[in-house]
């Protein structure tokens, strides 16, 4: 029993902390119901209270906290909107939980639990996308880590996670694999579409331990040539899924071409207005190798396969069975390999899309480019010459014999082709 008393003490202290976290979060949400940091705080507070109460055998508290967690989980995943009604219900639940926890600590099992409806279904309305494309700008946040920073990859990860709570992260420089492997000096940049202010973004980044400095700039994106047809979430999903299947097929093709086992990370899918593509990509200052091919037939437009130069050089060494870093410059032979790989990836991708939808699509011969991403993408858009409203990125990490390489396929269907795709996909 004495042991239990010791736990009572820890429970009393800790439940107080988490209740305070919940109340602070709720106060923040009264001011700004869209503040994801506060939504996260209330969610986590409730989650912890649930676990602790269950561990102590306080079932009523655990149940109430669990229902709060569930409702906040729906808000976190943007399945419900935090309307005043929802906030009032959560607030009442939090007060009830506070009293219940006090009673639990005092050993009083008779305290009444008020009935509060926390069923997410009761608050129905699915959240429509919060901000339209015009309210969300493309922003690049540059971050410098402290010189003595010892866990650069971890800090970068935390920065990107915090920023992703404030918008949709579209790219980073260097790429994700390089960040994870700490193959960067002290600075990196993150591109995201967001409605948050530049000050808030800088504050979020500088709040991370060992971040020395951060700055944010709005990227200037040219106006779309025509009014963008709206793209429902379902159509975005469908376009994304087409990309997913295409990427799998492309990896298989590459595996056949190289005669090596190629593993594929879960592809990251992104559908953005085509005018934003050069900026959203993230690799502002990195030289990349790319192949571009025109599409014709039922779907016009173009397709790009992009890899960093470093990834290409690694691929060259791997293909020739030489140790990494043997090849340091790109010559005609390297260019030819890049063309072969890019063509295989693009062909396989388009082939998958074509099979899936039953639409005949032809791919032109690929051309090789070595330039900055923005220049290559601008050129691609100019080359296509048709109206291309939306582009689908598929970004993935290929792992060839243990070597990780970031590659991206950018599928840019023209407006007619896009309509045909949606028609065939039934969305």
């Amino acid at each position, binding site marked *: 029993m004495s*042991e*239990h008393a*010791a*736990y009572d003490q*820890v*429970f009393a*202290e*800790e439940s107080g902390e988490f209740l305070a976290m919940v109340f602070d979060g709720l106060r923040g949400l009264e001011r700004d119901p869209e503040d994801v940091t506060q939504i996260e705080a209330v969610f*986590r507070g409730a*989650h*912890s209270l649930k*676990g*602790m109460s*269950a*561990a*102590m*055998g306080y079932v009523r508290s655990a149940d109430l906290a669990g229902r709060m967690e569930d409702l906040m989980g729906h808000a976190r995943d943007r*399945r419900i909107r935090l309307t005043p009604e929802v906030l009032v219900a959560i607030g009442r639940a939090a007060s009830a939980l506070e009293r219940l926890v006090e009673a639990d600590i005092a050993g009083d099992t008779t305290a009444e639990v008020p009935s509060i409806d926390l069923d997410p279904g009761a608050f129905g309305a699915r959240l429509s996308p919060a901000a339209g494309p015009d309210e969300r700008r493309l922003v690049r946040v540059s971050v410098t880590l402290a010189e003595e920073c*010892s*866990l650069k*990859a*971890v800090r970068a*990860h*935390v920065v990107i*996670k915090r920023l992703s709570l404030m918008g949709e992260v579209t790219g980073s420089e260097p790429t994700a694999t390089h960040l*994870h*492997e700490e193959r960067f000096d002290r600075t990196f940049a993150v591109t995201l579409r967001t409605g948050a202010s530049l000050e808030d973004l800088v504050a979020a980044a500088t709040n991370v*331990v060992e971040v020395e400095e951060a700055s944010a700039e709005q990227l200037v994106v040219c106006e779309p040539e025509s009014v963008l047809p709206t793209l429902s979430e*379902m159509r975005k*999903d*469908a376009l994304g*899924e087409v990309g*997913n*299947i295409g990427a*799998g*097929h492309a990896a*298989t093709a590459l595996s056949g071409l190289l005669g090596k086992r190629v593993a594929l990370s*879960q592809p990251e899918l992104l559908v953005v207005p085509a005018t934003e593509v050069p900026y959203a990509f993230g690799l502002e200052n990195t030289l990349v190798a790319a192949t571009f091919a025109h599409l014709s037939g039922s779907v016009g437009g173009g397709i790009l396969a992009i890899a960093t130069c470093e990834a290409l050089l690694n691929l060259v060494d791997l293909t020739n069975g030489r140790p990494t870093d043997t090849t340091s410059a790109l010559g005609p032979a390297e260019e030819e390999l890049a063309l072969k790989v890019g063509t295989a990836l693009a062909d396989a991708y388009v*082939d*998958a899309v074509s*099979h*899936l939808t*039953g639409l005949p699509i032809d791919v032109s011969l690929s051309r090789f480019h070595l330039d900055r991403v923005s220049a290559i993408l601008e050129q691609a858009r100019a080359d296509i010459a048709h109206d291309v409203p939306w582009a689908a990125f598929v970004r993935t990490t290929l792992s060839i014999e243990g070597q990780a390489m970031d590659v991206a396929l950018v599928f840019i269907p023209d407006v007619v082709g896009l309509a045909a795709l949606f028609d065939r*996909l*039934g*969305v």
Partner: protein
Amino acid sequence: MFERVGPSDRVGRRRATIRVLVVDDSALVRQILLDVLSLDPRIEVVGVARNGVQAIEAARELDPDVITLDIEMPELTGLEALPHLRTVTDARVIVLSSIDDSDTMYQALALGAVDFVPKPKGRLTMSMGELCEQLQKTIRTAYRVSPGAIAIDGDTIARTMTAILERSASSGEEPPFESSPGAISKTAVAIAASTGGPPALERVFAGLSSSLPAAVLVVQHLPKGFSASLARRLSRAGSIPVVEAEEGMVLRNGCGYLAPHGAHMCVEIDGSGPHITFDHRLGPMHGVRPAADVLFESVVDVFGEMAVGVVLTGMGTDGAKSLRLMREAGGATVVQDEETSVVWGMPGAALREKATNRAVPIGNIPAEIRRAVRARELCDE
């Protein structure tokens, strides 16, 4: 900062101890774990951390042998911290979490955790004895895994998943299946999937083991040439071997059969038992061939109330009407819910057809299948 835990009072012990880092965001849970682990003289807790970032810092600093890692934590979650942990330490990571769906488990193992212990659901302070035994055992087992041998290939993940599921099954909630794998099937699970299907199917197979006393038949709408690689991926996801179905294959328990592109896959039965056959004459149905409706109808004919039907994410309406037939014939039916579906066409259509009243998240589909199969196994006895 993370906390170091000072040398214990067992000063002067000669025997090497297993040095453990405890990571959990709850002070209460940390305290309980410290108490539980202090009961085992071979285990020494060298530090505690309260979030993913601290866990990485502590692991680098303290170089523990084993880390117990919570999932839901501030800063970096357990799953987010795992890849970093693998780069800074050789420590074997055991995930200890109340989030114990098969999906989370699969991800944790794929990221390099060696084992997964679900936190007891009830009163932790009362079930300490149980937790104690389980955790000490898991830590000692994990310690014996050589750091270099932490492989995250599909086979290892599948084996570990199976072991964990069987362990949690034997500890109460779900009894393990007793049937011998490979026996001719009396029960069949038929699954339909389209858009978004391959990753969904991987999750389903990750949660099933080859001890399942049923055959699993899959129709996934795919372009030509995809089915061989999908079968390989599904085989790697769990312990059920999945093959591209061929004419005449006899349906066996604990085996998976994926319909290849270009013909409708069906089942029929004769003296040798239920087996695969193809209808090459029938044209595409719903614009696809194979179509789930063709498979499901034949499964209803052959297996009747011993059929289990599942419709996962996908566009269109394939599988909806035949799933209703299955339900009417006494089979069990379930569909993936809207929240976790990429496209809620087929599952939604099945629900509208009143083919089922169960729409559940993808993470719960394996449990639904196990439950339905178990119910049929019991009826059959």
